[in-house]
C-alpha cells in the first residue's frame, strides 16, 4: 500500500506532484494560509523525506504549513481526511479494473462507446463501487478540482455525466423503447431508473468536492461580505466568524499603534546631550546621543450602550471593546443602559464570551437612559479625565425621551482631549423620534456612523492616529 501511495503521488515525477498540489489547495480551503513560497518548500521537503513513512511526511508538512497550535490540529485533521480519501480511491481503483477486464469480455455492445459500455454494465448490475470509480475517473478527466463556486455545480455535474457516456446510453434507450418488445422493456425501465439515481449521486459527489476545493474562495467571499454587512443582520454562525475578524482587526490596529509609538527622529544628533555625556573625555564625542521623539500612550475611555434599543449591536460592540482592551494598555471601559458601570475588570479577567455574557447579564437590555447614565459618569469617573484622554461613546443616542443632560456631555468634552461618538444608526435617522444625536453632536469632535466592521476599523484607526 505504501509503495502504491508513493507511486501514486509521484506518478508524474514532478516535485509538486498533483496530490500535493491538491492537498495544498484543500488545506487553503480549510483556512490555513499557505503562501507560494511555503508550498515550494513543502514540495522540496516532501521530495527529501518521501511518502514512505506517513507519520514523517505528516510531521514535515505540519512543520512547514501550520504555524500555530490551532493550525497544527487543523492541519492534522485535514491531512488524515485528505489522504484517507486518496488511499481509498486508489484501492477501489485497483480491484475494479481487474473486475472490469473480466466482465467486458462477456458483453459486447458495439453501438455504444466504450465509456457508456462500462456504465451500462455497472448500472445493470447495480455495482455501486464501479459506479463510484467511474464517477471519480470522469471527475478526474474533466478536472473537477477547479470547481470554485456553488453556481458551477450544475455545469460540472453535466460534464461528468457526459464524460461517462450517459448521452449515448440515453439515445440507446430511447431508440430501443420505440421498437421495444415486452420482455426487454423491464430491463430498460430499470436502467432509466438507475440513471436517475446516478444523476443524484454525481450531484452529491460534485457537492462534496466543492466543499473540499471551493472553500477557499467561498470563505474569502464570505469574509468580504461580512466586513461590509450590517452587524445587526448577522446570524449566530456569522458571529463566530465575526469574532475572528474582530480579533484580527484589533491585532492589526495594536501593531500599527505600537509602530507609531516607536517612531523616533533617529538620525538627528542631540548636540547638547552628546557634549554633556562626553565631558569626561575632554569633549571628544565617544558616545553619541540622538534626538528622540517621545510619543504618548493614548488614554482611552470607552462608554458603550448595551440597552435594548441597540441589543443586536451591543454584543458586537462589547466584542470590539474586548479586543480594544487587549490592544491598548491604558483603557477604561464602561457599559450602561439605565445606569452606568465600569466593566474594565470584567473585560480583563474573563474570556470574550463570558465577559460579554456577564456584562449583558448585569446591565444589558434595559431601557436606556442617557441622562442618568451620564450623571453616573459625572459623579464617579469624570475626575479621571485628563486633557490627554480620548472618550469614545458607542450608542444610538436614543434615551426614551428622558432628559439628555447635554451639559454633562459638554463637561466631558471640555475636560478631555477629544470626544468621539460612534452611532450604529444611519445619519438620516439621527434626530428622529427619541434620538438626541443632534443635541449631543455639537460637543463631539466627530460623530460617525458605525454599523459594519469596516466602519469600526476606520473609525478606530483614525482615533488612534489622533490620540497619540
Amino acid at each position, binding site marked *: 500500500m505504501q509503495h502504491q501511495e508513493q507511486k501514486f503521488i509521484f506518478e508524474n515525477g514532478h516535485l509538486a506532484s498533483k496530490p500535493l498540489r491538491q492537498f495544498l489547495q484543500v488545506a487553503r480551503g480549510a483556512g490555513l494560509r499557505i503562501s507560494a*513560497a*511555503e508550498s515550494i518548500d513543502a514540495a522540496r521537503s516532501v521530495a527529501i*523525506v518521501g511518502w514512505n513513512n506517513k507519520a*514523517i511526511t505528516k*510531521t514535515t508538512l505540519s512543520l*512547514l504549513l501550520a504555524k500555530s497550535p490551532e493550525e497544527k490540529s487543523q492541519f492534522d485533521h485535514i491531512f488524515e481526511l485528505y489522504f484517507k480519501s486518496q488511499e481509498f480511491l486508489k484501492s477501489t481503483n485497483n480491484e475494479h479494473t481487474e473486475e472490469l477486464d473480466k466482465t467486458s469480455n462477456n458483453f459486447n455492445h458495439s453501438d455504444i462507446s466504450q465509456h457508456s459500455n462500462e456504465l451500462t454494465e455497472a448500472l445493470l448490475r447495480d455495482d455501486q463501487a464501479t459506479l463510484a470509480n467511474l464517477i471519480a475517473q470522469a471527475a478526474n478527466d474533466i478536472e473537477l478540482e477547479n470547481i470554485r463556486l456553488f453556481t458551477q455545480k450544475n455545469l460540472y455535474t453535466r460534464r461528468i455525466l457526459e464524460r461517462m457516456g450517459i448521452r449515448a446510453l440515453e439515445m440507446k434507450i430511447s431508440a430501443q423503447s420505440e421498437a421495444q418488445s415486452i420482455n426487454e422493456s423491464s430491463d430498460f425501465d430499470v436502467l432509466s431508473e438507475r440513471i436517475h439515481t446516478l444523476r443524484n449521486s454525481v450531484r452529491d459527489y460534485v457537492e462534496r468536492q466543492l466543499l473540499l476545493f471551493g472553500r477557499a474562495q467561498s470563505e474569502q467571499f464570505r469574509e468580504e461580505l461580512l466586513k461590509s454587512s450590517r452587524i445587526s443582520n448577522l446570524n449566530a454562525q456569522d458571529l463566530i466568524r465575526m469574532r475572528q475578524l474582530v480579533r484580527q482587526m484589533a*491585532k492589526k490596529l495594536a501593531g500599527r499603534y505600537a509602530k507609531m509609538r*516607536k517612531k523616533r527622529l533617529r538620525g538627528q544628533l542631540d548636540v547638547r546631550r552628546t557634549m554633556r555625556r562626553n565631558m569626561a573625555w575632554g569633549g571628544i564625542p565617544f558616545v553619541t546621543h540622538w534626538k528622540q521623539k517621545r510619543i504618548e500612550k493614548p488614554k482611552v475611555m470607552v462608554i458603550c450602550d448595551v440597552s435594548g434599543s441597540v441589543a443586536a449591536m451591543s454584543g458586537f460592540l462589547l466584542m470590539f471593546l474586548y479586543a480594544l482592551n487587549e490592544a491598548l494598555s491604558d483603557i477604561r471601559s464602561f457599559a450602561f443602559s439605565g445606569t452606568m458601570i465600569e466593566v474594565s475588570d470584567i473585560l480583563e479577567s474573563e474570556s470574550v464570551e463570558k465577559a460579554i455574557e456577564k456584562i449583558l447579564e448585569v446591565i444589558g437590555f434595559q431601557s436606556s437612559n442617557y441622562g442618568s447614565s451620564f450623571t453616573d459618569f459625572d459623579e464617579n469617573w469624570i475626575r479621571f479625565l485628563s486633557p490627554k484622554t480620548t472618550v469614545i461613546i458607542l450608542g444610538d443616542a436614543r434615551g426614551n425621551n428622558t432628559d439628555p443632560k447635554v451639559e454633562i456631555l459638554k463637561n466631558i468634552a471640555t475636560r478631555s482631549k477629544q470626544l468621539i461618538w460612534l452611532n450604529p444608526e444611519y445619519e438620516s435617522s439621527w434626530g428622529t423620534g427619541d434620538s438626541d444625536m443632534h443635541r449631543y453632536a455639537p460637543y463631539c469632535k466627530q460623530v460617525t456612523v458605525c454599523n459594519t466592521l469596516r466602519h469600526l476599523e476606520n473609525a478606530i484607526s483614525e482615533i488612534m492616529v489622533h490620540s497619540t
Partner: protein
Amino acid sequence: MSNTQNHIQSIQDIENGLANTGYISNTQISTAVFIAQQLQKPILVEGPAGVGKTELAKSLSTWLHKPLIRMQCYEGLDESKALYEWKYGKQLLYTQILKDKIGSVISESDSLNGALEKLHDFGDIFFSRNFLEPRPLLQALEQPEGCILLIDEIDKSDQEFEAFLLEILSDYQVSVPEIGKISAIVPPLVLLTSNSTRDLGDALKRRCLHLHIGFPDERLEEKIINSRVPDINKKLLKQIVSFVQQLRSLDLKKVPSVSETIDWAKVLILFHTSILDTDTVNETLNVLLKFESDIETARKQTHTLTQQSQRASEIS
C-alpha cells in the same frame, strides 16, 4: 556544510545523536532538525516554558561539535546590540593618528591634486571590518565551521527587530550600509524560541519551520528524566512522572514543566526518597509549583494523586 551532512543522514541519526548528548527527542523534533538542515531553514520552536526549547540548541551544538551562539532577546534590543557596532573609540584614535601622520604622507607631493591622489591611495579604512565590533548575529555568520545560532525568546523583542531578522533568516546575510553585504561563510543552523507571549509576524513565521514542543507524554517524560537523573530508581521515576502528569491536569496558574520535574527528581534523590508519600510531596511541592495559590490547590489533592501514582507505578 559537508561536515554536518556526514553526521545527518537520516531522521534516526538525529534522534540517536541527540540521545547521546542526553536530549531525548521525538520524531517531530528530529524531523524538524532534518528538514532544517536539508532546506537550510531556521526552526521556530514554540511551547510552554521549560519543555527544552533552549536545551535543544545546546544539545545540537554538543552533538555537532559546533559553537553555540546565543542571543537573548528583550524589549529594546536593536541592531547595534544584535548585529554590529562601530568601535567608536578606535575610530577616534585612528583619526588622531591620521592627523599626525597625514603631514608626512602628503608632504612629498607639491600640488593639491597630488596630495589628493595620495589621500585616495591611502585606503578607506575608517569604515572597514577592522573597526567593526561583531555582535552575536554577525559572529554567527563569521564562524568558519558554521554554528548553532540560538535566538532566544524572540517574542520578547520588538516587532521592528523581527523585521530586521528577516534578511539574516532567509538569505544568511546582513547588510552593513558602509561595507555592503556580509554573507555567511557556512550557513548556521538557526533556532528561534518563543513562549508565545505575543503573536509573531507572518513574515517571520513564513520563513521558519514551525515546531511546537508540548508537554511530553508519560513514557517520553520517563525517558527524559532517566537520562537527566540516571541514578534514580525505576519505581520512584514512574511515580514522579505519573504524579506530575496528573498535576498538569489540575487548574493551575503555571503547570509544572519538564525542567521542574527534573529538579523535583533531583531533590527527591537528595532526600533519599525511595517511595513517594503524601508528606514528602507536601514538603517538596514548592519545587514543582511556583505560585502560592497553585500550591494551595495542589495540596488539597496530594493524597489522592500520590496514591494514584503509586498504583500506576505498581501496574507497570
